[in-house]
């Protein structure tokens, strides 16, 4: 695991060091993907938006003023692109599925993903980010602007809501 901080990697990426930006991708990909999937609830669409987020981030590195805030900045880009994606999904066929329909390739977990998609945003987003990104409550709390204990409570409440829906 590369031990350079986000600040150093971002500064080096801006100077053209491609391996530095790749390290940023490896470090933050799953977290951004978790956010995209939590908003879009379609895995293929989430992967596409996640990839476009990092590509746009690479082009727009000059706009980042504080290199130590790369994680928050890339999440903001991802969130904006997801919101744009949801808007476009309503208007056109840009995305492969209809609104709030789980991807057909969810297989054995289609009931679970349908139930997750039906959760309120405040519970669904931390839940999906938690399980896709290796249980990093601190990072989730930082990106959502809340405390670690709040994230914990919302995740457990989400589990109870899922249980009630799946038991019906």
């Amino acid at each position, binding site marked *: 695991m590369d031990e350079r901080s986000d600040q*150093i990697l971002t*500064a*080096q990426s*801006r*100077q*053209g060091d*491609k391996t530095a*930006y*790749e390290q940023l*991708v*490896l470090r933050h*990909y*799953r977290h951004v*993907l978790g956010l995209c999937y939590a908003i879009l609830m379609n*895995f293929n669409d989430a*992967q596409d938006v*996640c*990839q476009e987020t*990092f*590509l746009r981030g*690479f082009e727009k590195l000059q706009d980042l003023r504080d290199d130590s805030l790369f994680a928050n900045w890339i999440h903001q880009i991802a969130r904006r692109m997801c919101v744009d994606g949801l808007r476009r999904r309503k208007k056109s066929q840009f995305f492969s599925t209809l609104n709030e329909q789980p991807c057909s390739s969810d*297989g*054995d*977990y289609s009931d*679970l*993903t349908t139930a997750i998609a039906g959760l309120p945003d405040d519970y669904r987003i931390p*839940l999906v980010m938690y*399980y*896709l990104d290796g249980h990093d*409550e601190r990072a989730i709390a930082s990106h959502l602007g809340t405390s670690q*204990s709040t994230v*914990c*409570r919302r*995740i*457990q*409440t989400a*589990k*109870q809501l*899922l*249980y*009630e829906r799946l*038991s019906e």
Partner: protein
Amino acid sequence: MNINPCPDHKTEIEAYCCGHLSPAQAASLQEHLSGCSPCSRYYDMLIQQDKQLSAWADSLDSRIQDGQNSLLQRLREKEVSSAPLERSLRYRYIWHTAAAAVLIAAGFFSARLLQPAISKEQLFAEWSQTIQPQMEQKLAEAVARQLRPELLQMRNDLADKMTTQISESTAQSVALSQAMNAKLIREFADAVQTVQSRDRQVVSDALLRLEEKRLQDKKQTQKAVTSLALATGEEIARTRRQLFEASPVLFDSSNTNQ
């Protein structure tokens, strides 16, 4: 089925599932769970949901890895085409400006040469006095205008790179210095401990020798006292014998008086 734990313990159970309780708190909660069915069912439900969600996330792992690899590949392809194009556009502008200057010069000479009764010397004199300085100035301004942003960018990039390198090498120097200080402190502590151990050994040996000497002296003293006692006893006996031989009457009368 509704699962409703005790209101007093619901938050605690959720914190326990997140690993936020201390060992003492966890032990206390486990004791409660063993005696409270609603709380125990709530805890079991959370654990079951955790397992199901973890399995779901694991099932996405290979697709996530594929997506990540695809992105890295796209990034590598993207980088190659971006920077050189900008530079070529800039230098193209400079060449265009130079080409325009040459055309203007060619136009001037053509126009002048077509006029009647003008010699080559007059033509070149007019050119070098009026047109050439103006064209040189305009060409220099155009080149400076185009190169200035690039030079500024290069200067900023070098400054950033130098700052980053200075920060990194300072951090490395501090870390190295701290590591060396720690090593020196450890070596000093080891040396002190060795010296202390050696001193303790020396003192211990000295005490042992003192003790042995003391015991030896004690034996000798005891021996001398015993010898002295024997000698004294013999001396006393001899003296009594001598006194008796010298004055047996005196010795007898003194015994009678007693």
